[in-house]
Structure formats: C-alpha cells, structure tokens
C-alpha cells in the first residue's frame, strides 16, 4: 500500500486535537496583535501585573532570605580574600616597605614607619589583632607583636627629653596647640568651652536634681583639625599629632589641648627638623621651631632600628617577618585560599606547605571520597526499598513509608549517639558477631571513630533522602511498560534493566544530588563518630570558626567547598542533564 504522506499520516484536514498540535507548531514566531504591536510585547505587558503580584507574594520570604542568609554568607565568603587589617593599621610601614629589596634588613625609614604605626595601633589596642592575623602565616609573630606593643611607647623618649630640656614650652600641651591646631578648630573649641560653662552655670542655678540632670552638657569636643601651616612645614609631626589627637578624643574622650603628646610625636618632630623641614614655618610658634631647628643637629641620636633590635626584640632583624608583612600588605589576599590548598605565600612567592602541615587537600579528597561512598551505599540500600514501596498497594506502602521517615522524627544527635553504642568494639554489633562466631573475641572490628563509622552512620541518616525521590519517581512509572517489555520477549532482568531502570534514573539523580551535597557538608555525625580519620572538611571549617578563630581560612575552605559542589552540579548537568532530575 502506498504511503499517503510521510509527514501527516493521519491525513485529516479537520480540527482534531492532533491537528491542532501540529498547527501550533507551525505557527509563525512574529505574530502581531490587533493594534499592530508585536504579540510578544503585548503579551508581556498583559503578564506584567501578574508577575508583579507574584513578586509581591514572594517578597517577604525573599527579603528574609536575603537578610538572614544570603547577605551573611556573602559577607562570610568575602572574608576569605579580605585582608585590610595590615594595610589599615600599618599604612606607613606598608608604604615604606615598597622600597625594600626583600633581602637585607629594612632601613631606618621602615622602622620609623613601623614605630609610628605600632604606637597608634597599640593605643587603639589593635596590635594583637595584627599579630594574630600574621601568625596564621608565620608562627611566632603574634607574641612578637604583643611584646612590641608593650615597649613601643618609648620610641622617641630620648628626643622628648631633649626637646623639653631645650625649652620647657615643648612639654606644654598649649604649645602644641598653637603649633598644630587649625585656627578654626581653636575657635570652635572656645565656643564649645563657652557653651559648656554656660550649661554648668545653668545647672548650678537649677533648683532640683532632675532639672540639673536635664541640663547635662554632653556634646563632645569638636573633632581636632590640623593646621595647614603645620602639615606643610612639618608633615610627619602633623600626621602623627593628628592621629594622637584623634585617639585622645575618640578613645580616651579627653582633649588634646590638655594632654601631653606621645613620645613618638617628638620622634616625628625630630625627624622633620633633622631632615631640614620646618624652615618656612611662620606661625605663632615660629621662634620655637627656629630654635629647635638650630638645636637639633646637636641632639643625641638614637636610631629607631637600633631601638627595635636592642630594646624590643631582636626577632625584628628576621627578614622573613618583614617578608610576611609585605606579602600580606594588600587589602585583598589569596593567602587563605593558598593555605586551603596546602600552599603558602612567602616573600619568595608561592610554595608548598611543609610536609607535616599539608592537611586540606587530603581532607577535601577524603570528603569527596566518603561522600561518594555514602551516596553509592544509599543507592544500593535505597533502590530496592523504593522499588518495593512503589509496587506495593497504597496502604502497605504508606505504612512502610512511615517507617522510612521514622528516623526524621528522632533527633539527629540521638541517632548518631545510638550508632556509638551499636558500633563500638564492646558494642552490640561486635557482640553479636562474636556470639555468632563470625569474628573472634580478640579480633573485634573497629567500626567507629574511623571512616567505616562515618560511612555507616551517615548512610543511615541520609538514606531517606535517597528513598523519597526514588519512590516518587518510581511511582510514576506505569507498570505497563514492564509488561510491554515482557510481551515483547524480554526476560524479567532485561525488562527491568532496559525499560524500568532508565526511567528511574531521574530519581537516582535527584537522590544522588541530595545525598551527595548534604553529605559533603555534613558536620555533626563525622564529628561524633568519625574519630580522626573519618572527619570531613566541614569539621575543619568548624574548628577554624570556633576554635582557632581563623575566619578567613574557614571562609576560604567554605568557598572551595561551595565551588566544588557547583562544579559537580555543573558536570552532572552536562552528563545527566538537570532536567532529568525529578523529585516526583
């Protein structure tokens, strides 16, 4: 018999459902609505209100998730590259180190800058934080910084004494005010003093205690402003002095007008004057400066570098320390990621960590390997159960499903602890095996505090996540496919393997993704039953978050974990296709 038409074997011209489908396929893309606008655009316009309403419906959840979940995680992940502690607290040192050749001991300028930075940092009590940050990269720096912070105040003391010996005016805060403060600030401050006095007078005049309290004057002193004249003539002194004024005002809530300057200010003044600066200074204290300029060459000199090495700690002669400071002077660093990959950033570039300190790559490998093992044991155990469930009558399968879900209603900790009881060497399972004669009493199996323990306990915990998607997919596979396969001559096994199994693959895919991603980030169970060989990368992350407080490294490890999961997800999508994943 001749074929009527290859493309339309059901050659009806009427409006059958089949024909309607074919017509829809054939419909042209660029349709135009009645008013001439493209159909797509008018459709979009019509749908916009609907979309806005949908957006309004999800908005509360979206905002909740963004605020409580996405933003903190993003912030946490950002810590893996964030490194502004060095550049923020040691700005002068970082700048001075630019000229350092990286091999010799840095010169006097670098030490002077470090001295100034550390005085300020220790006044702000930041020097220990810098120390612990650098300690992640080089052991021992933390104590060096703590030690230095105690002694750094004395830098410049020798010059302070000599300046004061030269002219007692140098000891007076008022002298420094005339020298350093901007005229406008002095005016502002006078106004503020007047206000304070008025407030006090009014308070004194108040009749009751409550009234007096209401008149309390709590406006802070206006923020200190350095005079332009001073910044131009004595840049270092001006810079250090304004830091001093800022710390005095914000930290101590005192006035720079009433406080003796730090020794380091005298040091800076000496540096300025001995470098020949301050010549053109024509302010009120010009005479004082001129006198000091003349006296400075006769001053007894003390190099800051020598002070560091002799008075504070000879470790400052170690160029590795300087290399570490320089290596981590950028506000962003790859250091945490390098550490997470068992590498480290040194003055000489990137190199591998010493043998004994390489743990992270091994931990990542172990996490991946064990997650895969858990995933495969979940498939092996879950597939038959899901198959049985989906082929039983509704009543029975519901009952069994409750049994599958039962573990969900028990606390995770209880379940994991139960495994401890079952799996330990003197535990139930070993006892039974010994009693059955499978193993001898002297050769009890080590089932806990190792990888076996973690795999057993986590397979049990994650099994429902494999069974449920498998079950829901298998339930949708109609039994007539297998019947059809058998009627076509397939044995039970062929019918299962060639017809049933391929259709259950979406369920396996969904189960695998769930189980794998859950287990790769699992923490509590490996912690409890994993011992030392059965722990995951997440246990290390938790350690850095809560014990070592190296949040940057924890964030880097977490980021790598996230990226690994996303890459695997992508690979899965390419290999299996994410459309093939079905939760039922």
């Amino acid at each position, binding site marked *: 018999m001749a074929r009527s038409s290859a493309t339309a074997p*059901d050659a009806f011209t009427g409006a059958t459902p089949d024909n309607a489908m074919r017509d829809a396929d054939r419909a042209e893309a660029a349709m135009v609505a009645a008013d001439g606008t493209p159909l797509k655009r008018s459709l979009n316009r019509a749908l916009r209100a609907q979309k806005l309403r949908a957006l309004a419906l999800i908005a509360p959840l979206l905002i909740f998730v963004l605020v409580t979940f996405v933003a903190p995680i993003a912030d946490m992940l950002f810590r893996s590259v964030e490194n502004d502690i060095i550049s923020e607290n040691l700005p002068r040192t970082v700048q001075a180190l630019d000229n350092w050749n990286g091999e010799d001991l840095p010169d006097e300028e670098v030490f002077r800058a470090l001295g100034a930075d550390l005085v300020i940092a220790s006044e702000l009590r930041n020097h220990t934080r810098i120390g612990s940050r650098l300690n992640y990269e080089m052991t021992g720096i933390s104590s060096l910084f703590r030690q230095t912070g105690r002694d750094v105040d004395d830098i410049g003391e020798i010059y302070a004494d000599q300046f004061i010996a030269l002219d007692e005016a140098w000891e007076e805060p008022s002298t420094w005010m005339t020298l350093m403060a901007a005229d406008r600030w002095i005016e502002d401050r006078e106004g503020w003093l007047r206000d304070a006095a008025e407030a006090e007078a009014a308070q004194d005049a108040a009749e009751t205690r409550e009234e007096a309290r209401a008149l309390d004057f709590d406006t802070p002193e206006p923020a200190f402003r350095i005079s332009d004249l001073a910044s131009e003539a004595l840049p270092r002194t001006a810079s250090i002095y304004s830091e001093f004024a800022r710390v005095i005002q914000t930290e101590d809530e005192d006035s720079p007008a009433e406080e003796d300057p730090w020794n380091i200010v005298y040091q800076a003044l000496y540096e300025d004057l001995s470098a020949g600066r301050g010549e053109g200074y024509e302010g009120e204290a010009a005479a004082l400066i001129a006198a000091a300029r003349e006296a400075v060459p006769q001053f007894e000199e003390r190099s800051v570098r020598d002070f560091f090495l002799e008075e504070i700690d000879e470790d400052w002669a170690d160029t590795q320390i300087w290399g570490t400071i320089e290596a981590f002077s950028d506000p962003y660093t790859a250091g945490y990621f390098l550490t997470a990959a068992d590498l480290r950033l040194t003055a000489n570039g990137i190199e591998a960590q010493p043998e004994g300190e390489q743990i992270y790559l091994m931990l990542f490998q172990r996490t991946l390997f064990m997650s895969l093992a858990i995933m495969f044991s979940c498939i092996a155990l879950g597939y038959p159960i899901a198959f049985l469930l989906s082929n039983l009558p509704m009543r029975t399968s519901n009952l069994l499903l409750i049994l599958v879900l039962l573990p969900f209603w028990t606390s995770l900790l209880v379940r994991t602890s139960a495994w401890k009881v079952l799996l330990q060497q003197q535990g139930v399972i070993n006892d039974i095996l010994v009693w059955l004669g499978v193993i001898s009493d002297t050769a009890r199996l080590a089932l806990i505090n190792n990888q076996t323990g973690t795999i057993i306990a986590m397979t049990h915990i994650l099994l429902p996540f494999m069974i449920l998607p498998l079950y829901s997919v298998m339930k949708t596979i109609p039994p007539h*496919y297998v019947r059809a396969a*058998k*009627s*076509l001559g397939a044995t039970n096994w062929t019918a299962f393997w060639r017809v049933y199994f391929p259709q259950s693959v979406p369920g396996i895919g969904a189960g695998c993704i769930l189980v794998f991603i859950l287990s790769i980030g699992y923490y509590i169970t490996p912690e409890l039953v994993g011992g030392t060989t059965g722990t995951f990368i997440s246990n290390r992350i938790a350690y850095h978050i809560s014990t070592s407080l190296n949040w940057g490294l924890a964030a880097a490890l977490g980021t790598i974990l996230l990226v690994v999961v996303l890459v695997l997800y992508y690979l899965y999508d390419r290999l299996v296709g994410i459309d093939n994943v079905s939760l039922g």
Partner: protein
Amino acid sequence: MPDGHSQQAFVEFDRVQKSYDGETLVVKDLNLSIGRGEFLTMLGPSGSGKTTCLMMLAGFEVATHGEIRLDGREINNIPPHKRGIGMVFQNYALFPHMSVAENLAFPLEVRKIGKSEREAKIRRALDMVQMGDFGGRRPAQLSGGQQQRVALARALVFEPELVLMDEPLGALDKQLRETLQFEITRLAHDLGITVVYVTHDQTEALTMSDRVAVFDDGRIQQLATPDALYEQPQNSFVAQFIGENNTLEGEVVALEDGRCVVRLDASGEQIDAVPVNVSKVGDKTLVSIRPERVEFDPDWDERSLTLDAEVLEFIYMGDVFRTRLRIAGRDDFIVKTRNRADQTRLRPGQKVKIGWLPQDCRALDP
C-alpha cells in the same frame, strides 16, 4: 473471511476460571476457541472479565483453574516473554527513553537478531504503519495516533502469530479511531495473524471482527459473527449492549413452532414475536425491537402489527432522524428513520401508527 469454527483451534480457553481474592470469580468457566488467522473481539462493559482473559492469555495473570492452550500447547506455566505473543496496550506503552526505532529494535534485540536484519525488519514494520520517516523521534514527539501506529508496528515487528490488543484505540479521537480500525483489520488479514482484540466500543467490535465474544459478569453471553450478534441477540443483555434497542415488557400467551404471542404488560395489547429465550406460555419476557426496523404507517399485510403512538420528541441527527414516541405506556420508544427526501418530519404531539415485522421482534429473557 477465515471461518474460525471449522479450523483447528489456535487459541483455546478450556474451563478457565479466575479469582483475585479467593471469594469471587472474575472469570467464570470460560470456554473459547479461536481459529488461526481469526480476528476475535472480546466486548463487554468494564469489569466483565474481558481484560482479565486477555491478561491470562498474555501471561500477566495466572488462571486459577482450567487450561489455556496456544497452538495445542498448554501455556499456563510459560512466562510471558516466552509466549511470543505481540501485544498492543491502550496507553501505547512506548518506552519513553527510546526513539521509535529503538522501541522497535527492542523485541528483535532480545531475540538476538543481527543488526542488518533488524534494521530491515524495523523499516518494513514502520512502512507498514506509514511511519517510515519517524524512526528517530521520541514517543513524546508524536501525536496519539502516531504513537499507536508505532505501538502496533512494535507488536508486529517480531512477527508473532498471535497479537493481543487491549483497547488500543480508546484514547484517540473519533476520526482517527475509524481510520486505524480499518488499518488494523487490513494488516491483520494481510499478515494472516490471529488477533484477540478487547474493547468496550461495540461499533469497533462489529466493524473489525470475524467473531465477537460479548462478556458480562465473567461469562461469554454470546459468541457470534457481528451480523448474527446484532440481528439475533441471544439474550436481553446482548440485545441491550449491542446497538440501540427498544424493549417492551410482557408475558407469553401463546407459543408454537417458532412463533409466540406476547401480551404487553402496560397496555394489554398482544404482539407477535420470535421466541428466543422463552420456553413456555406464561413466561415473563422482554420483547426487543431495533429502532431502525420500526416503520411509520406501515402498509404491510395483516401479519404485521400496528400500534398507536404519540410523538414526544423529534431529533435531527443528520443522516438519520430519531423520534421518541409514547407507546404502550412507555415513553422511551425510539424510532430511527433515514434522512430521505420523502421522509416526513414528525412534530411533537402528532399521533401516528407504527409497525414492524414479527421476525424483527424477539422475545428474550426478562
């Protein structure tokens, strides 16, 4: 048309019974023999046991009692995949993860047929159902009609002698169903295969089959050729189930050599009828008359019977007119007349006389 009765039986059900729960029989004492090359339809309402019979033949259900023989060999204990029976399912059951060609290759692969021969057979089978260009498609990309063609090709590609079809056209629209009915019949006769076809659609059964087995309540109510089934139903179930039917309740008042007289319960009028399921005078009976055998204002000889009727409703159906009448106390008496140029179109309320030939009026069981 092959005559199934006279040939040696190809498929035989011998006193087959089936029970699912051990309390009620779904199939009660089934005896049926199907000849080689015959197209036999099992027709019946849902729950009548017809699909169970098919599944027992396919091997998906085990007979509780009795023997099923295929080509003289008992197959009760042979698993389905060794029976070599082709099967077409109502919902096509095309494997969704395989292309059309792979679906067709499946039965050949499990039979270890070589690649070149396989491809030739697939091509021939697809051409046979006019789907030659669709080998690379997935079932989901095909329309319902196309899917059923592929399912048909798949059931035929391994050249089974017996093909079972379980309501294969149930999900298709009417026009497509009619085309495929024709094609399935043609293919079955061209290939000389034996077909057991299950349906609940009587038109399908009548147009396609050599013989039809009407199932009800786990039994075959009548096994006959389509014309015999329609014109000579053996009991009132068959008469009601096949085609449209007017029934009048009555009592046999006279019975002699192939004729009987029935007094209608409602009006007391006496009519002639062919006795089918009545045995003696005084039996209660249901008299059955096909709507198209009734004439208005008949001018036959005195043997024919005329009754007074009142038109209640006139329905224009295109090729036929359907008139609902009140007759002998009943108001659901239907008369079908062809849409001829001279055919009068009755109006509701009109009084008419109607009549029919005694041989068209069958006295069946009540």
